[in-house]
């Protein structure tokens, strides 16, 4: 979401958005990272002009509601040697997909795991799992691991490797001042 608005400090919050104006300020301020200091919420509080207790309370609410998945260190998987990735796709029975999705999603080499719709007859896969490893060879082993979990319920599968990035702007909440 890469657009600029000159006049407004914060976008108006519409009725569909669960975020209030303060939440949006917090998102804008922290989506590229938090201050790496002993008292990070004090630093955010100073920038927002509110108390650190209020910042912590809002961020805890965002965590509780799932807007924030977690507050954590985000490793750069390329620098850690995870140079290869692949989008694995599987055709499994719809009535068992939640069970298998949980199992596959728990695997340490899976970063994203989703149930998505089929588009028959062109596209029959309904379970998507992004896998990461040091090289393509390691990914082959991971695919075998997933196939073993699905067993007979794996009716067909494929892996799609990305060969070129055509565009990558990232997801960014709108703000008057671009953060990047």
């Amino acid at each position, binding site marked *: *979401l*890469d657009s600029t608005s000159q006049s407004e400090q914060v976008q108006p919050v*519409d009725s*569909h958005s*669960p975020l209030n104006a303060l939440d949006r300020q917090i*998102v804008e301020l*922290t*989506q590229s990272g*938090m201050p*790496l*200091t*002993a008292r*990070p*919420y004090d630093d955010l509080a100073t920038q927002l002009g509110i108390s650190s207790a209020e910042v*912590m309370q809002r961020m*805890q609410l965002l965590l509780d*509601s*799932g807007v*924030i*998945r*977690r*507050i*954590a*260190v*985000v*490793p*750069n*998987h390329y*620098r*850690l*040697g*995870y*140079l290869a990735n692949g*989008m694995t796709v599987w055709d499994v029975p719809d009535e068992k*997909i*939640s069970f298998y*999705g949980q199992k*596959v999603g728990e695997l*340490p080499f*899976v*970063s*994203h795991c*989703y*149930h*998505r*719709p089929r588009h028959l007859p062109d*596209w029959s896969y309904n379970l998507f799992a992004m896998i*990461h490893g040091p090289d393509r060879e390691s990914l082959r082993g991971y695919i075998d691991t997933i196939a073993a979990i699905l067993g007979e319920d794996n009716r067909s599968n*494929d892996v*799609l490797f*990305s*060969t*070129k*990035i*055509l*565009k990558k*702007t990232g*997801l960014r*909440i*709108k703000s008057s001042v671009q953060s990047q």
Partner: protein
Amino acid sequence: MPAASAKPVLDSIDRQLINTLQHGIPVCEQPYLQLAQQLGIDENEILRRLQKLLDDKILSRVGPIYNAEKMGGGLTLAAMRLPEEDFDRVAEQVNSFDEIAHNYTRDNVFNMWFVIATEKAEQLDEVIIKLEKTTGYPVYNMPKIEEYYIGLHLAV
């Protein structure tokens, strides 16, 4: 990428920090003091090491991981099946939409995969219709029906 392919040297404390803190940092006045007590590593030592890991780009950031869908916007994955002779033209047309956040070529008959992000959920369908009109090809919308896990447990 020669710089990225050289695996960085991390000692056991760096590894412990990455392995532990990728799962979460507590929300409290002095989160690194709390972690220091849990891990038996000095607070300043934790901060110094995390800063170095950031500077060395071993960590891409320290902070909240947001779920874009929970912020009220629309988000979906979509794919297209394009003949080679039209691929570049369509790529340019698709990329010209502000709502396209990522777009990748993949080695499949479904050879173009992109993420569509809109300010409001109901705008997704309009964007897909516009994409189909502009490019002349069908867009296969694959919104998530259920999410099982987001995140990678990188054991370093």
